[in-house]
C-alpha cells in the first residue's frame, strides 16, 4: 500500500528545495549601474556602465597611507563607524567580527571600516580600538582621513553619513555593510545590525570568491 503521507511529505520537501534553488542566485547583481548616452553614426546609443568605486588615500590603524590598490583582486566589505558611537556601531562590530573570524586567514578578503569622526579617531585611537577588538590590519583596516574625503567616499558607497550634534555621539550614519567584488564594484548591500543579513552576506562572499 502506498504511504500517502510519505508521498505528500516528499513532494512538499522537494518543492521547497526547488524554490530554494531558484531564489538563491548563482551570480550576484551589479548594484551601482548608470546609463550613458553617446551618438554613433547620427544615432543615440545608450551604454550601461557599472561604476567602479572612487580612488582613495587614507591612513589605517598602523599609520600607513593606503589607497585603492589594497583591495585589488580582493572581495571586500566596507562600512562606516566611529569609536564613540553608542548606538548601532557596537552591534555592527560584533557582526563584522564574525566575518573577520571566518576570513581572517583568507588573503582574498579585506574589510574596510571608515571612521567618520577623524577628529577623535586618530591613528593611535584606531590602533587601540583594533587591538581591543583583536583584529589585524592584514584583514581588517580601520581608516581615517580628512572629513570631506570620508564623506565623499560614504556618498560614493551609497552609505549616508553626516555630522549632527543632536545625534548620540555627534554623528549619524547608516548601518549598511557593502560587499564589493575583486574589481571594486558593489555587489550587495546588507543591514550590518542584523545577524541574518550578515550571514547572507557571507554566503554571497563565497559566490564572489568561487567566481574568481
Amino acid at each position, binding site marked *: 500500500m502506498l504511504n500517502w503521507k510519505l508521498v505528500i511529505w516528499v513532494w512538499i520537501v522537494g518543492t521547497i528545495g526547488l524554490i530554494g534553488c531558484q531564489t538563491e542566485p548563482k551570480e550576484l547583481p551589479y548594484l551601482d549601474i548608470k546609463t550613458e548616452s553617446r551618438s554613433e553614426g547620427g544615432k543615440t546609443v545608450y551604454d550601461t556602465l557599472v561604476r567602479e568605486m572612487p580612488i582613495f588615500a587614507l591612513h589605517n590603524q598602523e599609520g600607513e597611507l593606503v589607497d585603492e590598490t589594497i583591495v585589488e583582486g580582493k572581495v571586500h566589505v566596507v562600512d562606516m563607524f566611529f569609536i*564613540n558611537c*553608542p548606538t548601532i556601531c557596537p552591534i555592527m562590530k*560584533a557582526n563584522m*567580527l564574525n566575518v573577520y573570524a571566518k576570513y581572517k586567514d583568507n588573503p582574498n578578503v579585506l574589510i574596510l571600516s571608515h571612521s567618520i569622526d577623524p577628529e577623535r579617531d586618530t591613528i593611535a585611537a584606531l590602533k587601540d580600538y583594533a587591538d*581591543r*577588538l583583536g583584529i589585524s590590519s592584514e584583514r581588517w583596516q580601520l581608516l581615517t582621513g580628512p572629513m570631506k574625503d570620508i564623506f565623499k567616499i560614504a556618498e560614493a558607497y551609497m552609505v549616508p553619513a553626516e555630522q549632527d550634534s543632536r545625534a548620540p555621539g555627534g554623528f549619524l550614519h547608516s548601518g549598511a555593510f557593502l560587499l564589493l567584488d575583486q574589481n571594486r564594484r558593489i555587489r550587495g548591500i546588507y543591514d550590518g545590525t542584523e545577524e541574518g543579513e550578515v550571514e547572507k552576506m557571507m554566503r554571497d562572499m563565497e559566490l564572489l570568491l568561487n567566481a574568481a
Partner: protein
Amino acid sequence: MAYRCTDPSKKGKRLYEVHCANCHGEEGQGLAQLYPPLANSDYLEAHATELPCIILNGIEGEILVNGVSYNQQMLGHPELSDAQIANITNYVVRQWVPSRPAPTPKDLKAWADGCN
C-alpha cells in the same frame, strides 16, 4: 492567560535591550576588550550600588573587569527617567549578580540618590 505587563523585571529587560544591549550584549557578554561583560563580572559585583549613577552619567577612564582592561567611554543616559533607570538596575542585578539579594525599591532609590 494572565500577562503581567507591569512586571518590573520584564520592563527592565526591554529597557536593557534598547539602551544597553548594543554594547553589553543581550546575554551581558560584552564585546571583545571594547565593552566589558556584565555577566560574571567582578567589577559589576563590586560596584552594583553605583549602577544607577553609571547609567545616568556614564563612565570614563580605565577599569579592570576580571583582570582585563577596558577604556571605552560610556555615554550617560539623561533621557531615562528615575523609574526606567531603577528598572534597568533591577534587571541587571537580578540577572547577573546572583551573589547579591535582589534589590528592593528602597535600595534602588538609595543607590540613585547617591548621584548628582
